[in-house]
């Protein structure tokens, strides 16, 4: 498993690119690339500052109470910044969309600490799209969740860019890698 050596750059990346070419064309292409890629690439993401300190004193309220046994509960560790219905309660799983829905190639991202090893992992919250609201196991956790001007860290946006239908059904929590 590769370690992540990213730093906050997504908006800066967009802004710097924008300076060098037609912004609209460039961004449209960038957008298309991001949503069309088959391997589900992520927007480059920031390593959250809070993930540095793994002592009990560095943990958020969510992390201090998180568990690693039941992925149909809001306090499952990967769900530290999830907003919506858990796909695990809707016929899907942690990284599996329910039948008839489509995983979004784009996602928002959280940094969550696994209570079993005390390690911070990057989690991609990938929405499953195409069917209306599952309505089961609604969660809204907000560790290091930012606002719309930092979209990849915001969990209110319908992250169904690049799917055939943007109807939101549920959210998965795909393990991406170690954040350190």
């Amino acid at each position, binding site marked *: 498993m590769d370690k992540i050596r990213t730093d906050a750059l997504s908006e800066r990346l967009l802004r710097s690119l924008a300076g060098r070419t037609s912004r609209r064309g460039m961004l449209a292409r960038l957008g298309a690339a991001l949503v069309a890629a088959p391997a*589900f690439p992520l927007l480059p993401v920031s390593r959250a500052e809070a993930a540095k300190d793994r002592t009990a004193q560095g943990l958020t309220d969510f992390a201090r109470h998180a568990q690693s046994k039941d992925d149909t509960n809001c306090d499952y560790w990967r769900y530290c910044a999830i907003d919506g219905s858990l796909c695990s*309660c809707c016929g899907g799983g942690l990284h599996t969309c329910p039948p008839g829905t489509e995983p979004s190639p784009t996602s928002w991202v959280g940094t969550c600490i696994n209570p079993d090893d005390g390690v911070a992992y990057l989690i991609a919250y990938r929405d499953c799209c195409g*069917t209306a609201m599952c309505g089961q196991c609604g969660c809204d956790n907000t560790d290091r969740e930012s606002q719309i001007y930092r979209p990849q860290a915001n969990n209110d946006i319908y992250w169904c860019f690049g799917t055939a239908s943007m109807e939101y059904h549920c959210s998965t929590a795909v393990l991406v890698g170690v954040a350190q």
Partner: protein
Amino acid sequence: MLAAVISPVTLQAESVVPQIEESDVATLPPLSPHMLLLTGDGSIKGTRIIDGDSGKILGTIHTQDLTNVRIAPDGAFFYVAETIWTRGNRGVRQDLLTIYDARTLKIVDEIDLPGRLLVGNRRQTFEISADGRHAFIYNMDPASSVIVVDLARRKVARTIEIPGCALVFAGAAATISSLCGDGTLSTIGIDARQSQDLTPAQPFFSAEDDPIFDNSIADPKSGKAIFLSYSGLVYTATLAPGQGVDAPWSLQQAAGMSPASTRPLEVSWLPGGRQLIAYHRATGTLYVLMHMGEFWSHKEDGKEIWVVDVANRKVLRRHRLAEPVSHIQVSQDDAPLLFLNIENKLVIVDAKTFEEKKSLDNVGNGMMMVPGE
């Protein structure tokens, strides 16, 4: 430059986030007797496919208010009769029969329909023939008709006018039957050459004084049907050319009481609710939601389930419900489950012992379908 944009990898290698899990999509297991399709309306929409044994949701079909869902007899498809406007509440009206693959829940086809009645909580506004070749959609605009869809060719075959009648039961011998406002049953061949009413036009109930519930029981294979009136009269019939309706008998008498009255002030145990009867075909067992009340309380939720041996006209058991129930369904296998719903909450009960097995909240409150019903 373009390459760099398309792939963030080449743009700045250090920023790439490797992914150790791949996103995938689940498929449904093959249809099995304990699977339930529950169509929500109002605040909780969508048709949830639920495994009766685990009490877990296996998937959801996108359905809106006033949608009807049927299971193909061979289990290959789910059929959805639905109405959608191009702009939500406005624009162009689209009446559709949408066909979903029963394993992937992907849309296989969408067949345009010339109309359908917009009403909730009705089973017999949409039916599939026993051989799976035809779908029947009841339409009222406000004239009454049945739209016949050829499911093999995936197109509308014809429209059958049924003036004064409503609903569609798939009968034996390539016929459909409807209940009529004058208290008769009308049976018509689905073939254009047989469009005459094939039943003796004998009124057998009063649509004004003791109506029969729209939600009746009919077996598309045998044509055997069970109708139930507001007062608790049970009518059995065979839906086929030339067949009539048997003389009715009283549910209350079958439980050792006096027959119920239709007069004001008189209180009886009465059938009521929305999907208020379910039938276990192999054993000939009828389950009816019953409540205490006066006549014209036919939408009141059930406080008891009456278990009825139809052949012997006998109430075998009266089960008192912990909370009222508006919808009931029963699986068709020999270890049957009862599905009970009230206000979006589903309770799954052993149909023999009435032991509660599972319950599930926020799943919707509407019509329930099981394979082979």
